[in-house]
């Protein structure tokens, strides 16, 4: 069953076409990553899916009653808006205190429940955003460059956490990212976007695709291989019981 089915999507901003002829499906429980250079229409794709941008042409079909969890890149609030982590978690969820607290605990940040959001670190902030997004038990998580501002170990940890979320809840994940090497190793499928879908498939097949290499340079593929090695290694130690994707 497709959670999201996109057919021949075209999105314009003014006279400029940012997306044309994009086909994309996301199935239950899979991790799909969209990569592409700046201005390739990655964010427009997400905005079209959540209904923030209306497409010029094409069709986006969401599964009936699809519950979406959204992890934004950042929040535009300045220090004039007081907001505790606790209040933020409650914002759009009718969920009791205990559930919020255990969600934060799971996200590895239980001690910041009473902190002001403006005072927590970038890594904690991303974990709070993720914890909030999964509170409603979504069918699919959308992440818009969620690790921007985190260092490499920080984003690696974050993606590790996303894999955990998928394993525990079987929630599908569609993410946009710049962190090519980290992301690709956690994905089931990679979509390389540049106005249209240049290439797509397993991380390994996309990394060796000539279009992908032309876009990101051959060097990336090397890093990917290197990282995958580390990553596999890590899995051997800590997550022996991990099942392949359901």
């Amino acid at each position, binding site marked *: 069953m497709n959670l999201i089915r996109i057919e021949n999507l075209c999105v314009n901003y003014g006279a400029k076409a940012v997306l044309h002829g994009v086909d994309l499906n996301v199935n239950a429980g899979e991790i799909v990553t969209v990569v592409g250079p700046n201005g390739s229409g990655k964010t427009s794709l*997400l*905005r079209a899916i*959540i*209904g*923030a941008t209306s497409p010029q042409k094409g069709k986006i079909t969401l599964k009936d009653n699809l519950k*979406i*969890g*959204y992890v*934004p890149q*950042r*929040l*535009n*609030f*300045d220090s*004039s*808006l*007081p*907001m*505790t982590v606790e*209040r933020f978690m409650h*914002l*759009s969820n009718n969920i009791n205190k205990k559930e919020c607290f255990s969600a934060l605990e799971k996200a590895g940040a239980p001690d910041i429940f009473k902190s*002001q959001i403006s005072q927590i670190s970038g890594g904690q902030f991303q974990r709070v955003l993720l914890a909030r997004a999964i509170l409603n038990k979504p069918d699919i998580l*959308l992440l*818009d460059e969620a690790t921007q501002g985190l260092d490499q170990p920080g984003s690696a940890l974050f993606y590790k956490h996303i894999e955990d979320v998928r394993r525990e809840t079987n929630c599908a994940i569609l993410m946009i990212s710049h962190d090519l090497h980290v992301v690709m190793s956690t994905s089931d499928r990679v979509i390389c976007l540049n106005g249209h879908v240049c290439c797509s498939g397993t991380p390994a097949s996309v990394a060796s695709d000539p279009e992908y290499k032309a876009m990101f340079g051959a060097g990336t593929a090397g890093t990917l291989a290197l990282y995958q090695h580390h990553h596999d290694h890590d899995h051997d130690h800590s997550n022996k019981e991990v099942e392949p994707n359901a």
Partner: protein
Amino acid sequence: MLDDFMTRAVLAGIGVALAAAPLGCFVVWRRMAYFGEAIAHAAILGVAISLMLQISVFAGALMVALLMAWIVTLLSGKNYAMDTLLGVLAHSSLAFGLVFVSFLSGIRIDLMAYLFGDILAVSQYDLAVIWLGVILVLLLMYWRWSALLISTLNEEMAYASGLNPKRDKIILTLSLAITVAVAIKVVGVLLIIAMLIIPAASARIFARTPESMAIIAAIIGCLSAFGGLEAAYIFDTPAGPTIVCIAAISFVTFNILGFIYKSIRQ
């Protein structure tokens, strides 16, 4: 009780302070101060038009305020930066309003009453209109509170939660226009933004959640209205500006207290 002009003035002041509190918080959070000012200045044009057509000043001010909001939305993101555009529109509408009023010969109009308010002249009818507007604004704010908070934090997050940030923004603008229209009599078009921003900004010092900021802002606003009227009575000063002065003094006091509190804790 409502026969007493002082009672009516206090009730009018408290009403405007209550509506301005939650709305003022959003004006601060969403950085809409200049937008609010454009709407408020446009209201003087509305006042001039209603005097000319001999219709209700509330209705005229509300209409032109909404018209201004609509024009701003249409023109935004086209050729000029938002603050430039708002600066042009705010001050042109103020100037046109003042010129329009000067055409109204025959009746002598006390322009100062519309620019700085005339809270001591609030009639029972005015009071009814003010509170009608205040209750409407408070209901709208209560209804859309969480939705507006989410779309203030991140528009995409709001869309993903099934909300409609565009509609909520219209509701916020409508509330702003209503507040401006009913506050003309109390503090006047030039000082309305002060009643929106100063209590909210003062409340920020000790607030830990958005809700507590709105409640503290309401308390500060009400105390300013009450204290301002008292002070105006004692010192024989104009009431509207005195109310704003009390709010400004509370802003400074709260900031000093906040600073001391922080220093002690460290």
